[in-house]
């Protein structure tokens, strides 16, 4: 800092930075991309290890025997489900009671803001059934949750069967347990889970109707959600990404991995098997793709399984999915049951909540992880570009008008600057607010006037407002003729504000949800750096639009499909894109996902500011 307090050297440094600004920015950008791509290179990552002592050294012996019986129960459950045409509440209550649990039910209902065409639901009514296995001599202060969604059709019957089988086995061995275990079968997957969690914690964040819960087990320490749709599985997949990009403690993933290794079950993350040839190109690209999938999923801010909603309540949770592919080696239900038994007995040993290991990480494979300390520099390099640009602008603003030291002249400058900046800021944010409010508010009107369904109406309104926003800057010019002062000065002030705004916005986003922050930074930072009123208009406008948040989403959809090895045609991709938008809006209204409001209220207005600068007159 002595460097900066010496005016001569400060001047020299600043002149160096302004002179070499563009090359440094380009260098930083490529360094950031390279750093990020290097993250999944195995020698640069850390091996996962169990941090929690209570789960580490004490190995448990799993003895769950009743896989066949669980599958029989699953069949019975499937038959009853078919007969009732939904969740067989009475049968479940009776079955759980017969297994010696305290059984309770919860009714819930929710009217969606607009029909969900992917899951074909609009007015949702359902019942959650849960049974509590009371731990002997424990005062109901801690609990673990095992849940299985009751899906429509024949899906997931095996999960419910295994859940009931485990309940029976756990009850008969109830001397183990130091924490109550809650066995939950939730209807309408995430909506039911949301209702149950809100009921359990007596909060209401999303305006759902539910009946209050009668029985509780204290504070929930950890939860697993089970998805099994076949009698045998080839591999088990763990899903970690939760609402708003939250992740459970890494120890939960470690626990799963450790037991898969012990029992000899093939385990995957992102549905991709781990490879050992990290030094080959294909091995490396495999790891990159796995990590990119995680980044994409995390950035979406969705809950990728029923577990995702637990994370808001500081409950570590993951979804375990059984995958049945065409491989030779199969795992039967008994083994899956043993795996779950082992995991629960380890979790039961916990003395404190899972807190020892990382909460912020990326996983290029199940055995390796990238911690926050390793991936943050990639984002930091991008953020530096914004700060360098801001410095450059500041110097440009400060130097030409007056050489007379500092103070008076600058203040006058900035006061006119602030006034001229205020109008575009307000207008672009109003556009953002319109993007947030209008689609859902005006769906009825849209349906009346156009031949579209409600869902289409919402999505198309959103796109219309978004594109409508692009037309605004030309109009806003007229309002700020008052500023009169040289427009050269005006756009610089506006750009300075916009660049700093973007830097703060992306910085905060990346702290909470690195993936989202990084993807946004990757596209918005170039925009923020190059845009001036003097660049070729048409070309720049095209580039600007292509790098706008909406197109980022479009590209992400295609890349995601590509990574999942399910490439789509442009037509299908477009339809997918529309449904992704509607899902994003629904996620916000149903579960409180923050990505939609973040994009609509903050990122999009910020981008509009740059659009504004481009068309500065």
């Amino acid at each position: 800092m002595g460097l900066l307090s010496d005016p001569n050297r400060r001047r020299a440094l600043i002149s160096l930075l302004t002179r070499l600004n563009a090359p440094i920015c380009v260098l930083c950008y490529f360094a950031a991309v390279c750093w990020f791509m290097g993250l999944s290179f195995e020698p640069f990552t850390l091996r996962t290890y169990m941090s929690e002592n209570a789960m580490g050294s004490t190995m448990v012996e799993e003895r769950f025997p009743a896989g066949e019986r669980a599958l029989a129960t699953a069949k019975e459950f499937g038959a009853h489900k078919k007969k009732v045409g939904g969740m067989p509440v009475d049968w479940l209550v009776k079955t759980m009671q017969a297994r010696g649990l305290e059984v309770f039910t919860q009714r819930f209902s929710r009217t969606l803001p607009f029909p969900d065409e992917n899951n074909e639901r609009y007015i949702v009514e359902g019942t959650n059934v849960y049974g509590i296995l009371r731990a002997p001599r424990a005062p109901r202060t801690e609990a673990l949750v095992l849940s299985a969604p009751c899906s429509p059709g024949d899906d997931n019957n095996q999960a419910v069967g295994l859940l009931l089988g485990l309940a029976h086995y756990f009850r008969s061995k109830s001397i183990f347990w130091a924490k109550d275990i809650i066995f939950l079968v939730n209807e309408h997957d995430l909506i039911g889970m949301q209702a149950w969690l809100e009921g359990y914690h007596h909060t209401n964040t999303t305006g759902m109707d539910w009946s209050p819960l009668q029985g509780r087990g204290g504070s929930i320490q950890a939860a697993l959600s089970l998805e099994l749709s076949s009698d045998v599985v080839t591999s088990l997949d763990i899903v970690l990404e939760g609402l708003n990009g939250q992740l459970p403690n890494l120890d939960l993933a470690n626990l799963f991995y450790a037991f898969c290794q012990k029992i000899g079950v093939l385990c995957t993350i992102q549905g991709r098997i781990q490879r050992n040839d990290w030094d080959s190109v294909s091995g490396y690209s495999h790891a990159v793709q796995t990590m990119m999938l995680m980044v994409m999923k995390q950035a979406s801010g969705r809950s990728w399984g029923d577990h995702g909603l637990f994370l808001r309540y500081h409950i570590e949770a993951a979804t375990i999915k059984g995958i049945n592919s065409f491989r030779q080696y199969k795992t039967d239900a008994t083994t899956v049951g043993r795996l779950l038994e082992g995991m629960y007995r380890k979790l039961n040993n916990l003395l404190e909540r899972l807190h020892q290991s990382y909460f912020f990480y990326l996983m290029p494979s199940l055995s390796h992880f990238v911690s926050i300390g390793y991936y943050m520099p990639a984002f930091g390099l991008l953020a530096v570009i914004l700060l360098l640009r801001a410095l450059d602008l500041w110097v440009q603003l400060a130097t030409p008008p007056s050489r007379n030291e500092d103070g008076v002249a600058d203040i006058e400058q900035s006061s006119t600057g602030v006034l001229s900046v205020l109008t575009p800021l307000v207008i672009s944010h109003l556009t953002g607010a319109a993007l947030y409010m209008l689609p859902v508010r005006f769906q009825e009107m849209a349906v009346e006037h156009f031949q579209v369904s409600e869902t289409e109406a919402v999505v198309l309104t959103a796109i219309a407002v978004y594109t409508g926003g692009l037309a605004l800057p030309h109009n806003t010019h007229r309002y700020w003729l008052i500023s009169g002062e040289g427009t050269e000065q005006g756009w610089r002030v506006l750009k300075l504000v916009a660049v700093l705004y973007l830097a703060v916005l992306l910085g905060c986003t990346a702290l909470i949800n690195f993936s989202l922050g990084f993807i946004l930074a990757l596209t918005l930072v170039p925009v923020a750096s190059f845009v001036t009123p003097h660049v070729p208009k048409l070309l720049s406008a095209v580039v600007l639009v292509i790098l706008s948040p909406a197109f980022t989403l479009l590209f992400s959809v295609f890349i995601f499909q590509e990574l999942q090895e399910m490439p789509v045609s442009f037509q299908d991709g477009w339809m997918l894109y529309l449904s992704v938008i509607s899902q994003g809006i629904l996620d916000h209204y149903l579960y409180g996902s923050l990505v939609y409001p973040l994009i609509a209220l903050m990122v999009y207005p910020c981008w509009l500011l740059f659009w504004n600068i481009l068309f500065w007159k």
Partner: protein
Amino acid sequence: MAAYVNRCSNLLVFIFILSVFLFVDSQQTTPVNEQHTNTADNPQPAAESATQTAEEGRWEATEVDEAALGDSAADKLGVRASDTFVLTPTPQPKDDFQEELVIRPLHSGDIYASFQFRTLWETDFMRENKVSHYRLFPKSLGQVISKFSVRELHISFTQGYWRTMQWGQPFLPSPPGAELWVWFQDSVTDVDAAWKELTNVLSGIFCASLNFIDSTNTVQPSASFKPLGIVNETDHRFLRYATLPREIVCTENLTPWKKLLPCGSKAGLAVLLKSEKLFHSSFFSQTVHIRPVCQDRECKTTSWELRQTLNVVFDLHTSGQGKREWSLFKMFSRTLTEACPLASSSKIYIDVTDNPQEEYFELSPATPLLSQAVVLGDRRTFSVYDLTQQVTFGTVRSLNLLIRWKSTEGDMLRPLLHAERYVAGYGLQTGEIHTVMYNNHPFRSFPVLLLDSVPWYLRLYIHTLTVTSKGKDNTPSYIHYQPSKDRMRPHLLEMLVQLPPHSVTEVTVQFERALLKWTEYTPDPNHGFYVGSSVISALVPSSVAMDTNITQEQPLFSSFFPCKEESSYFVRVYTEPLLVNLPTPDFSMPYNVICLTCTVVAVGYGSLYNLLTRSFQIEEPNPRLAKKIANFIRRIRGVPLLS
């Protein structure tokens, strides 16, 4: 009623009479009840110990169907008492010891076993310091009473939570963890000091962490904990109440508790108290209650009562191995062979109310003795085994009760009053405590006293307190609130709430989680912090007339809470304790954190502040000495200075 007059001295006659009684068993309930009242009305000349014990024996004889056995017991006791009378000319300490075991097959298929031991001693610990000769009463506790001028002392150690919805009401409720409440004599000047010292002494006696009781978890309830013994003052300045919800109860607490018994664990019912079985259960609770009680109806003389109870619930599933049957041996890994020789009465009661035709379970060996008692607002029938009778043990000289279940377990119960509590909300800043109370009585409303003691680190927002029943506001008729002081004392909230019939009443209050100083965190801060159970005390409407006569001979388990009116009975319900997470720093790398924070503050903040607040100007280098001198001369000459 011939047998009542006759004294049986010979076994043949005895058996004959017994068989007669077996025959008339079914028709005898009403006359015996008359007998009860008759004897109760007779004033008892309780002057000498010998006659008194004999009289007691006679009382016992008025119990249903127990005439013959009770009489012979009285004989035996009378002999023993007169023996001591003859041997020692000085008056003996008038003490008496009773033990009983109540076994209640629960609705859920579990088994509830409750041991009750009572030592009565007619003495005065307070008058002078001369009480030095102890017989049945444990000396350690006697000294505690006299040293600290204790009027009443109640301790309970509990592992597990009583499941009211499955098990109904316990005979004697207790909260998870340790609970201690003490009434001091009004002669005590510094109650807090006495309390502090007393908790430390008790901590030593019971090998428990009672020494963790300090001012931050002690409260003085104004209404919820009234004295249970003879009442002459109820100024709550002399009351102290504290709970330790985190206390873990195990063998080391059981052993000193067993040592307080006159027979230790050598004889009598206490031989069953094997820790490896008792702690292999769903619920375990041991208590000690000391209080002054009336000796007789007029309450001319008082005596000290020491009541030790141990309640345990065994799980049917865990050790049933498919067979649904229970025996004393299975439960306790011991059978009974004798009563405690020092006990004036030693009995086993088995609750057979729900099982008149043996349709739920089968009991063997069968006993002809039946007794009725009014417990918790219900008239229950018990099979009685009197251990002072050799015939109880049969030819094998040991008693191994066997219960064989026939039906499957039932649904959940709907007890008239039950309650639950939980923390609502998410995040580490605020939260809300919900206490839910259920009145399941179809048409009667009744008042309950709710006591909440919340540690200071949950800062209650008392203005957010709401009480709602059936969706409407329910104004408590009495509220006593004492705000907390940080690191000094907890919140105390007491309310008298009327519960409407067949309703759910919800009490909510919001709180803020305090950020503790870093030394105040427990070694396992991420486990969370405990908030003790709230206590709900109520007079619940009774379906049968309650016994208001406190001196009348009753089974021990039904006579703990004094009953003042016939139409209702006293119930105390404890909710579950809460586990609340406070904002916790990452203690795993304090060194890193401290270093980083200091660096950031020192370097980053310091120099940034410097840059922002100072204005920098280029300073001219110092003029040379020659120039200085030249300028000095020039100034004198009045010529312009050199620059």
